């Protein structure tokens, strides 16, 4: 077990991601944020909190998306479906997808498929807390990345919110 980000580093990283998102999007009027179920939601909530503190007057649009029904391994393993709640239109908007760990890229592939059913976004970007680079199975890369790490397949990366740390097993 190895700690990748401790409590303080995790807070700083999330704050940096919030800053980078604001840096690239001076107005958030046409930007919507979508956390991917189940574990991207908490990352999204933390980033939203940071943005809200930096710009209390900005109206934030934050939704959550479950990609269970869009997985490419439905027949191999059943996953329990979670809530999807996108209470706004994404048509013509810039969508920032938020997830905790980017690994094979298959979740993001499914999320891109799912997004299409909600409308035609002007642009889609990806923001992740941890990027397990060199393990990708699809051509997908993050636009905003908390920390890039090198891992082997047998290892596991977990964001533990109760301890506020990112751990490598």
């Amino acid at each position: 077990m190895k700690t990748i980000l401790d409590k303080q580093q995790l807070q700083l990283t999330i704050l940096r991601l919030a800053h980078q998102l604001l840096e690239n999007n001076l107005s958030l009027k046409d930007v919507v944020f979508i956390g991917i179920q189940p574990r991207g939601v908490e990352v999204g909530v933390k980033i939203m909190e940071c943005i809200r503190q930096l710009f209390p007057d900005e109206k934030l649009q934050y939704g959550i998306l479950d990609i269970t029904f869009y997985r490419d391994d439905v027949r191999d393993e059943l996953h329990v479906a979670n809530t999807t709640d996108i209470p706004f239109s994404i048509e013509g908007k810039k969508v920032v997808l938020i997830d905790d760990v980017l690994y094979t890229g298959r979740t993001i592939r499914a999320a891109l498929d799912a997004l299409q059913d909600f409308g035609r976004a002007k642009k889609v970007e990806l923001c992740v807390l941890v990027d397990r680079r060199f393990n990708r199975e699809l051509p997908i890369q993050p636009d905003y990345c908390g920390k890039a790490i090198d891992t082997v397949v047998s290892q596991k990366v977990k964001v533990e919110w109760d301890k506020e740390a990112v751990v490598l097993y």
Partner: protein
Amino acid sequence: MQLSTKHLLGIKDLSREDISLILSTATQFKEVLQRSVKKVPSLRDVTIVNLFYENSTRTRISFELAEKRLGADTINFAASSSSVSKGETLLDTVNNILSMKVDMVVMRHSASGAPHFLAKHIPAAIINAGDGINEHPTQALLDALSIQEKLGTLEGKKVLLVGDIMHSRVALSNIYLLNKMGAEVMVAGPPTLIPRHIKEALHVRVEYDIKKALEWCDVANVLRIQLERQNQVLFSSLREYNLAYGVSRKLLDGLKKEIVIMHPGPINRGVEIDSDVADSDQSIILQQVENGVAVRMAALYLLAGNN
């Protein structure tokens, strides 16, 4: 997380966890059905045949919609317009269909136990869409989802099944499900339409006085009088049945509380239920139909992933 069974033959075979899993998955599918694109690609590699050996409107359309909204390919089969009329047996018909690479079978049949027989002889997953007077599991599941949405939970709720209990597969599936989920069940109707020993066999309350029964319950599920299954005279006339056991506005207005009214359809207006009750705000009959698609999507999705 998966279902404990390979087929959905009846609620009798399901565990409490299975039922909860189907209902929670159905809730997620309800959200899918609110989207502008009401479709997900989960079952796009699956082919499903709908075998209807008995007439149906709601169930057949509901299953077909559910299958299409999961991206599955579907074939519809009605016994009346098929080689069944030339004398082909059930097993031959199904084996011929399966040899064309069909993965799942949704079947309605007038003989109780027909889907159980098939399950023993064919490799495909089977969903029972109603077999004779035995079970109609997806109807009980959609009834449960509708009650849960209206009252928050099934646990401890008092559910009344009124009418033709004897010939109703909806009643049997509902009794199994409600008992497993911790609801209290009462059946009411004329003594000729309530099986003897049902109280001990299925652990339900029995009441022959409709007024008392309605006074007891939170939800009344009014069942259709199944004239097509009755081969002897069990009550003198439909008019007399309506006077004695029909759920009327007057009866409901005389109660101390407002109860929820359900009906699995098709409704015999003016027989088991009066129009002004069926169409009132108390009735959730159309919500039941809406929930039917989501529940069937959940059942198909969970069974397809259960290899």
